[in-house]
């Protein structure tokens, strides 16, 4: 079942939590709603569930308009951050609860519960009460309860946020496995970019209630549509340098006296733009070949990566470098980047101008030039 959102808007008093979102979630797809807290991703999920009703716009499940339909009639399954299991019921009865509400005959219901419990691997815990389970187990029960009535759509509201780091990784893979095994359409809300990028077929990035970009995960990372998308994704975060035009193809980096030359391009009518440089795309080079240079003010090695912070004027730039390099704090260092790895943004609108592995860069150029 495809889920279609049409100009979906939600206002609370004066604030617009969700601002005119239009998109389609395809059948069997796992879509992540990603964004910082307060960006409207959870509200969007609540609108999909029917627990909130939108102030404007429509929601379609397949061809059916469900905008004003109540949650209990939508045929959805939902998993919450704090699991929301019924504390007074055993695991078996928790999973069976939606079936009981549908008045499914008990024998049949128990059989369906057993099937679901096997799928999420908790069939040995059916007699326990939720309080006697670990966080991971509770979340498995919650998933089983959400899926047992064979919903058309599965909604997950930050389901991993209450779990510890290792369990989170494990449950992340589990959710993906279960989702694909059942073949259900799923929407997954998270503020964790790694989670979103690893689990989903498609990521919808939101900020201030507005859908910023929707793409396959890798594509969103490689080709951010605007400054927000570029800065939200990536760890360590992307570097931004603001460039001002001086003459022809020479630009000065704002906050420092360094200038750099860019190859001539059609769209360089802009007086100023922002250049986004991913730390992992930068590499050290001899002084004269560098795009810019600065003093290393900080160095740290985490696992296999060595991160340096470079000071050029008032600006700092982060770069991931070869751990075997003999750089030390206080050294001068020059960095370079392959031209196609640079992302260019309009500093006024925040929109992408070009860069990265741009196939349709030209089209973008015409639009913005």
């Amino acid at each position, binding site marked *: 079942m495809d889920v279609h959102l049409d100009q979906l808007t939600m206002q609370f008093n004066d604030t617009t939590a969700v601002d005119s979102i239009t998109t389609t979630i395809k059948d069997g797809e796992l879509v992540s709603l990603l964004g910082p807290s307060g960006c409207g991703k959870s509200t969007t999920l609540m609108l999909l*569930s*029917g*627990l909130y009703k939108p102030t404007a716009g429509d929601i379609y499940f397949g061809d059916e308009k469900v905008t004003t339909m*109540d*949650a*209990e009639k939508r045929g*959805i*399954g*939902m998993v*919450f*951050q*704090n699991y*929301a*299991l*019924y*504390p*007074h*019921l055993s695991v078996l009865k928790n999973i069976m*609860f*939606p079936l009981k*509400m*549908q008045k499914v005959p008990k024998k049949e219901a128990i059989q369906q519960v057993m099937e679901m419990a096997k799928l999420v691997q908790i069939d040995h815990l059916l007699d326990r009460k939720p309080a006697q389970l670990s966080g991971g187990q509770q979340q498995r029960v919650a998933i089983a*309860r*959400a899926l047992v*009535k064979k919903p058309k759509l599965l909604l997950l509201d930050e389901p991993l946020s209450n779990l510890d780091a290792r369990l989170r990784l494990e449950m992340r893979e589990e959710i993906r496995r279960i989702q694909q095994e059942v073949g259900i359409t799923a929407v997954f809300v998270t503020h964790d970019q790694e989670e979103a990028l690893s689990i989903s077929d498609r990521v919808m990035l939101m900020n201030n209630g507005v859908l910023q970009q929707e793409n396959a995960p890798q594509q969103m990372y490689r080709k951010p549509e605007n400054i927000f998308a570029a800065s939200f994704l990536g760890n360590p975060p992307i570097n931004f340098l603001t460039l001002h035009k001086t003459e022809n193809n020479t630009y000065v980096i704002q906050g420092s006296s360094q200038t750099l030359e860019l190859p001539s391009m059609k769209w360089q009518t802009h007086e100023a733009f922002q250049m986004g440089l991913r730390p992992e795309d930068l590499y050290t080079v001899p002084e004269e070949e560098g795009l810019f240079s600065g003093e290393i003010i900080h160095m740290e090695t985490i696992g296999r990566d060595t991160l340096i912070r470079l000071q050029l004027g008032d600006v700092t730039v982060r770069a991931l470098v070869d751990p075997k390099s003999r750089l030390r704090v206080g050294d001068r260092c020059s960095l370079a980047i392959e031209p196609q790895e640079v992302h260019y943004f309009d500093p006024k609108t925040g929109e992408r101008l070009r860069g990265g592995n741009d196939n349709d860069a030209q089209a973008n150029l015409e639009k913005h030039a």
Partner: protein
Amino acid sequence: MRSALSKSTIYILLAIGAVFMLLPFVWMLSTSLKAPNEVMAMPPVWIPSELNWDNFTEALAVAPFDRYFVNSLIVTVISTIGELVTTILAAYAFSRINFFGKNIIFAVLLGTMMVPGEVLLIPNFVTLSNLGWIDTYQALIVPWTASVFAIFLLRQFFLGVPKELSFAAKVDGCSEFRFLWYVMVPLAKPALITVALLKIINSWNAFLWPLIVTNSQELRTLPVGLSAFTTEAGIKYELLMAASTMVVVPMLILFFIMQKYIIAGVARSGLKG
């Protein structure tokens, strides 16, 4: 050393309190077994020279206590069930549903808790007599089927239940009412038991109200029935105490079995029941 000292102080104080609380019970029991001449004896007789079990059979013969017992049972059971129903519904509304004037109505309700019960006796009586209910079971039951204290207690409990639980229940196909019945009520069981117990005790012991609104003997409850021992010739204390013992025993048993809930309930609300 210091903690042992303060602990023993606490126990001594508690023991003194317990003695004062238990003394009337002991006196009641001992009087109920005394011969008439020992009742008023000076110095007081604590242990009857002879255990007069006949007092109990004699007391039962003085008035139709079987009838009073049935009346007490009917009034207690129905008003308790009634109070539970109104409490559950009202507490749910005040904790989960948004409606116009909710906070004001709740504040007014809480305000009524400040009014002493005695002040309400006459207005309530007038209302009931206008309804033509004086000397009926309704008069004994209906005014006691709601309690602000109970609503407040349960509302606090309901407020502590996470919102996600109601979301989950809705998604699972529960209407508002089914969520209340299948999730909230089972969850609130400890609080509800507390409410019910306090109600049962109050209702069983109620004296003034049944005395005022009933005239006929068929409608008397046990506490009122005890007045049968007050005659023109004086009070037959040994029989009165025997009957009182029988009246109190069911409540004592209930208290001993359920004291955990009663104490928890009073502690939870920080208010006396």
